[in-house]
């Protein structure tokens, strides 16, 4: 029995996980560019796409990681957790809290290696929650034969 409120929470949980995942991966990629190519351009481009004004990269990193703005990763993971708690599936609540703890860590923003490690930790936690969501609330696997039978039945 799945209540409408739970479906709603599951939908928004998924959307926030997607958002954290995409922003974190884009950030990681831009951080590697900064480290290996000494180029701030990918970070500036990311800031532009998220509507964050870019002045110094340390300031941008603070905003995107922990800023009190809807574009920040912390904002998204906290909303993700609210929806996970609302959904009430124990393993998902647990993983969402682990992800929040991972994001809340404060790396030294002057040290790019530390920020890269931080982003990697966040992505690892996102991978975990993705796997758990898949295990806990993904629809059951339907065999090809059963699917074809259902399709035939619907056509009749």
């Amino acid at each position, binding site marked *: 029995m799945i*209540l*409408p409120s739970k479906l709603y929470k599951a939908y928004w949980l998924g959307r926030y996980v997607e958002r954290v995942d995409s922003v974190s991966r884009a950030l990681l990629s831009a951080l590697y560019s900064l480290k290996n190519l000494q180029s701030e351009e990918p970070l500036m481009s990311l800031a532009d796409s998220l509507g964050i004004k870019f002045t110094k990269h340390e300031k941008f990193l603070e905003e995107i990681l922990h800023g009190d703005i809807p574009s920040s990763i912390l904002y998204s993971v906290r909303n993700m*957790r609210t929806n996970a708690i609302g959904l009430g599936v124990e393993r998902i609540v647990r993983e969402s809290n682990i992800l929040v703890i991972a994001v809340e860590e404060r790396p030294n923003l002057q040290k790019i290696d530390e920020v890269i490690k931080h982003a990697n930790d966040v992505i690892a936690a996102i991978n975990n929650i993705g796997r758990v969501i898949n295990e806990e609330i993904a629809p059951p696997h339907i065999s090809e034969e059963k699917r074809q039978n259902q399709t035939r039945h619907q056509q009749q």
Partner: protein
Amino acid sequence: MHIDSLPSQSIDFSKTESYNEAIDNNLLIRKEYVQFFKNIQNPRLFRLREKAMSADLTAYLEGFTYNVKSDEYNAVPMDFVPRIISSDNFQIIEDGIKQRAKTLNMFLKDVYSEVKTIVPDELVVGSEYFNPDLIGHLPKNDIFIQVYGADLLYNGKTYYVIEDNLRVPSGVTYPSKIREMSDGYLNVLKKGYKLQPYKPWTFLYQAMKDASWTKNPFMVLLTDGTGGAAYFEHMYLSKLIGIPLVEAGDIYVTDSGHIVAKIPGEGEIQIDVIYRRVEDLDVFVPGLTKAYIDGKVALVNSPGTGVADDKLVYSYVPELIRHYLSEEPILEQPKSYNPTIPEELESALQNIENLVVKERGGYGGMGTVIPRDHPKSKRGPLIEKIQQEITENPDNYLLQETLDFSTTITRESFSPLILRDSYVDLRVFSYYAEDGPHVPPGGLSRFARHGRITNNSSGGGVKDTWIVNLDG
């Protein structure tokens, strides 16, 4: 056992004027705590800190939190040092709470049957929680308050009830979660104690079932959602009882007046009992009160119960006990001043510095001011403001004497292990079923980190409450 026999510098006392439940004035450990102190010195109990921290982390990860903002949750601070109460003392509490539960329920029955009570009519009708639409519509078995939470203080001799919570009392699951964590990580601390199991949800389940007008009821818990301060409790409790947790948007009233939940892909299911953890029923589910009045659904607790936990009605509870049960009150309550009575208003105004000022409709510490706890420099203007407010709106307030209540020991640090005395209160719950009220052995003990205020938001935390039989 003297505290000198413990590792040095391990106990820090500052509140020597108050009764300490663990250690007496001669620094001897009280009998309830002797075995506990032996247990924490047990060489098998190494890595106490890691175990306590693991319990904290597990509870946090499982969502044992309270809301700070709509999307921010803080861990509920747990102390591994339990509050230990002898079963003899708890028997007094249990008897006293049952006595109050019966009395308050009988009072509500009279109020909603239009029977004159000993409480002045203007206080009953003037209560913001009195609902005239409910007159003549009594719940099954005339039970209004299936769940009742009473806040108690102890002074070493007597337990005082400082507040009755009859609307949507919270904190039911906190002691269960703490017990679950201590069973999992710190069971060695219980060695030598025979603790009575604490499973309040079994009583709640029965009380809900007995509230139903149908035989095999479909029951749900109605929550105000993830933005509410007690969402964890709603989630955890619905799992313990084994009933669905629904939000307002999940249920509605049908044309026939029944309450149904809509299940996508499955249709509708009729709901017979709602354990409602929301105050404004019709704001959340329009038509819910009417469905209750028409007998289409049972609500736990019934609407309109707030009239009996009104602060001014509270001052009449001892008299109500004598009136309805022909018994003397088992539990004390602090001397109260009803400002609507001119003589009481006058003596309260003169002595306001030593009183607790409570707003009539407030609960759980909201709307409560303790002038004595404010710095002396700010006390004068505060008292003047309160005096003026009470004089202008006497029926909005209740004043009580300030009690000097007990402390117990709380962990201050782990390395080295330092215990500190801290003020502690107790919320005990009663569950009213067909065969009368039941009081499970335990409750929510909250300690203050600073001063006397035990709320989470003021830095307070919670403890496991052990009811122990010292004779057996």
